[in-house]
């Protein structure tokens, strides 16, 4: 990449950091919320929405300079936007491209929808087994209630 081009792309190009691509536009701000971007007060953050995408028509993009996420932070995204791609960028190069995917187990992230579940009545973390990664269906380890993707409430 020439120095001139680099300058022209400055707003969107990262030297080091994370670029989150292919976010469904309707979930963009929820992803930003789940990643707690408002707590990052020194990182440069670019948020763009409704970009044209060959894959999905329109998409949202978030770029965060000098920030690399931990696995459980990424798991949160998979709950609402399972097809998102994460690009880890170091020295202007994408060094790692990883699709987020639901883990087998989710601890402490999701609220159980059953008011009579022990997890809603006792100071304890929730624990769900992901029973269908494609559909995003979860089952509470305790009350055994199934939760469909559209009914998931994030704690």
């Amino acid at each position, binding site marked *: 990449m020439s120095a001139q081009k680099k300058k022209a792309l400055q707003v969107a190009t990262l030297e080091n950091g994370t670029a989150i691509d292919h976010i469904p536009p309707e979930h963009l701000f929820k992803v930003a919320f789940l990643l707690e971007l408002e707590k990052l007060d020194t990182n440069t953050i670019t948020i763009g929405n409704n970009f044209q995408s060959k894959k999905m028509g329109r998409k949202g993009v978030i770029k965060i300079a000098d920030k690399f996420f931990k696995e459980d932070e990424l798991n949160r995204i998979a709950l609402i936007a399972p097809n998102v791609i994460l690009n880890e960028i170091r020295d202007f190069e994408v060094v790692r491209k990883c699709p987020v995917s639901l883990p087998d187990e989710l601890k402490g992230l999701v609220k159980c929808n059953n008011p009579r579940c022990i*997890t809603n009545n*006792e100071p304890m973390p929730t624990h769900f087994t992901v029973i269908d990664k494609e559909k995003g269906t979860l089952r509470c380890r305790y009350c055994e209630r199934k939760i469909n993707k559209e009914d998931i409430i994030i704690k």
Partner: protein
Amino acid sequence: MKSKSLVSIDQCTKEDILRILDNAARFEANPNRVLLEGKVAATLFFEPSTRTRLSFETAVNRLGGRVVGFQDASTTSSSKGETLKDTILMVSNYADLIIMRHYLEGAARYASEVTGIPVINAGDGANQHPSQTLLDLYTIRQTQNRLHDLQITIVGDLKYGRTVHSLIVGMSHFNPSFHFVAPEELRMPDEQKHFCDKQGIPYVEHTDFTEEIINHSDILYMTRVQRERFTDLEEYERVKNVYILRKDMLSQSKANLRILHPLPRVNEIAYDVDDSPKAYFIQQARNGLFVRQAILCDVLGINHLI
């Protein structure tokens, strides 16, 4: 789990089920055995359930063990706001095992995770009640001399009835065929039907409770249709008498047919059925004692002494 607990029928393999039933048969032959001498069982009943509690406490007593506990959470510190975890850890200091009934779903699994002693789930809300399922299986085997290849008809509240859902899971190891008889509002949920489909278990759903269905059955498992389950009370009035078993409906039934019910019954089995040799729900409840004796020995790891 740190120790061997019985939380859900789903955790039991076919071998687990058969081992417990075989041991229960030994206790039926001789229920008074001193196997729990020096052991203390805590019966923690956060909601009352007289039948289940008496049956477990009798099982401990007949095995020579002792019982501590409570039968109503309003007299305990949980009413002062103590967490379940603290109550369980406190009791774990005193007892060798916990038998627990709780109104919240998942309470028994959580208890089994926080304590190092075995926990037997004696019912957690609408979720699981594995000793009931095991005594149902014991009774089915006792009356049919086998568990395999049986025609089982389940009648009543199939939507909320936890005993019914657990019975399907427990029987799934033994190649059953099911008939599900329920009013529209209380039909078998998709989750249980998908389970049957996945396991290759044939089932037929009916809204009418007819003699024809009874005549094909080896086991007729009746459950209570509760008024409070209905959103539409007119619908309840319409169906409440449709799912009542009367003696005259049994005239063409198979000789080996037996009628089971998890009890308490209200009016879903007419009292004239009690005289029929096919009525078996009182003996079924009696089997609860032997099955619970077997469960106690199983979680304590003392099967070899039986």
